[in-house]
């Protein structure tokens, strides 16, 4: 089971969390130049225009880099250490900072293909978390099968493509 720190929505993240509750990861496509940017970016990093159309990630990504966290900065994740957190590049282009799940004994390398999942908290409270996992995890499950933390993920859903 994976612990889920509680995250509170803010006025500027309402659309992002509305998408997440539908199992979708919000992205923004620039109306001016067509570049796709992350949900937090008000202005297009390519052409600086604000106008955009909402879209969502297809759920495939590649690993940019990662760390194996031994001293968790978050109390809710202390029981989970060591865990992996990293940067992944969505096929659409934007990067995500995200928890990365590996299968038992599986080694990571830059460029590795990953799948993005949205996971709801087990108690149904709070906002869902995003996860990246290797293809092997999808087949055999991830190495951190023990329970831990106060709140655990239940419904892990692959992003709809």
């Amino acid at each position, binding site marked *: 089971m994976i612990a889920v720190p509680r995250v*509170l929505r803010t006025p500027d993240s309402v659309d992002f*969390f509305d998408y997440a509750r539908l199992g979708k990861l919000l992205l923004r496509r620039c109306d001016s130049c067509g570049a796709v940017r992350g949900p937090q970016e008000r202005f297009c990093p390519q052409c600086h225009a604000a106008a955009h159309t909402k879209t969502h990630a297809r759920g495939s990504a590649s690993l940019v880099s990662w*760390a194996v966290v031994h001293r968790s900065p*978050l109390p809710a994740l202390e029981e*989970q250490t060591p865990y992996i957190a990293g940067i992944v590049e969505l096929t659409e282009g934007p990067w995500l*900072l*995200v928890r990365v799940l590996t299968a038992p004994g599986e080694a990571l390398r830059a460029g590795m293909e990953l799948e993005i999942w949205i996971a709801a908290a087990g108690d149904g409270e709070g*906002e869902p*978390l995003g996860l990246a996992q290797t293809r092997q995890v999808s087949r055999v499950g991830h190495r951190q099968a023990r329970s831990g933390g106060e709140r655990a993920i239940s419904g892990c859903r692959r992003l709809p493509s």
Partner: protein
Amino acid sequence: MTTIVGLGMTRFGKVFGVSSAQLAATAVERAVQDAGLNLGQLDGLLVSSGLRNDVTPMLACDLGLRELSLVASMNTYGATANTMVAECARAIADGTATTIACVFGDTPLRPDRRAGAAWSARDSTLRGYHGWQAAGGAATPNVLYAVAARRHMEEYGTTTDQLAAIAVAQRQWALGNPHAQMRTPITIEDHHVSPWIADPLRRLDCCLVSNGAIAIVVTSAERAADLAQPAVHVWGYGQAHRPRVLGRDSWWGLETAAGPSSRQALRRAGLTLQDIDLVELYDCYTYTVLVTLEDYGFCAKGEGGAFVENGRLAPGGDLACNTGGGQLSGYYMWGFTPLSEAVIQIRGHGGDRQVPRHDIALVSGNGGILEYHSTLVLSSEAKPR
């Protein structure tokens, strides 16, 4: 022409029972005395706060300063010390102020908790999209710098032993620094058994956490001539910033804005890297030193790992670097750590750790997660007109 004429430092580390503002006031008082001035001669005050965010322009009241023509709180994160000196250069050149104190003070350490807790996030503070990303577990500089270092390792083959070489070299320098918090020698093997914080970074790759304060006094070269200490002249300054770009083709983690920042500073100074006697580099992590050396051009991109091997940065090595132990082994006062050590070395006051050639120093500041950068070129000689 701008000159650093005073340096004031408090004790560093577990300094308890005194506020950041009190420490900052002590540092300013000492810097003014060091220069051979008195507080009443200050007409400018620039303040910089660390984690506690409690050194404010109201420090002017604490110091009993009655009339000032320049007061500001500045924040370029870890790049602030050098951007303050650049601000002083402009203020002195345009006549805004003549004699300015710049000070950093912080008290993140508390007697009842471990040092790392000072930088930890609390779950209750996770809000919005940034909180959602932090909930994945990469919430702090330790993790993000580890992700940056791993990227360099994957791209260029940089090794943990190369990071260790930086930690070991700086500890050797710290042995000669009475202000340093860590004065026990370490080896590469000690690095191997140092606890993981966020793999690939071990505890010995991470900076200290310190309570304390440092101040400098800045004035014109003309005024400096009559003062108490050997003058430290500001030949050049630069800054460049690359806020984190989170998307395809981003160089985040591999290359920083240190390059354009140092080129600006060297161009103003009319110098090249070959003229530099010593470098004092912002070292929140061992990796920060490695990537800054590359971006400054001391070696090619990707070759920083090989460059720092074999004691090149250690006492007696080819490049005198972080000669007081830096923030890894000395004290963690943001950009005032490298800046204070540069002042000490240029003055020739380095004692056991004094480097033989100390006429020109290059000083870096780095803030955010390799996002904000500033550079100074300092010299013992007045700049030729």
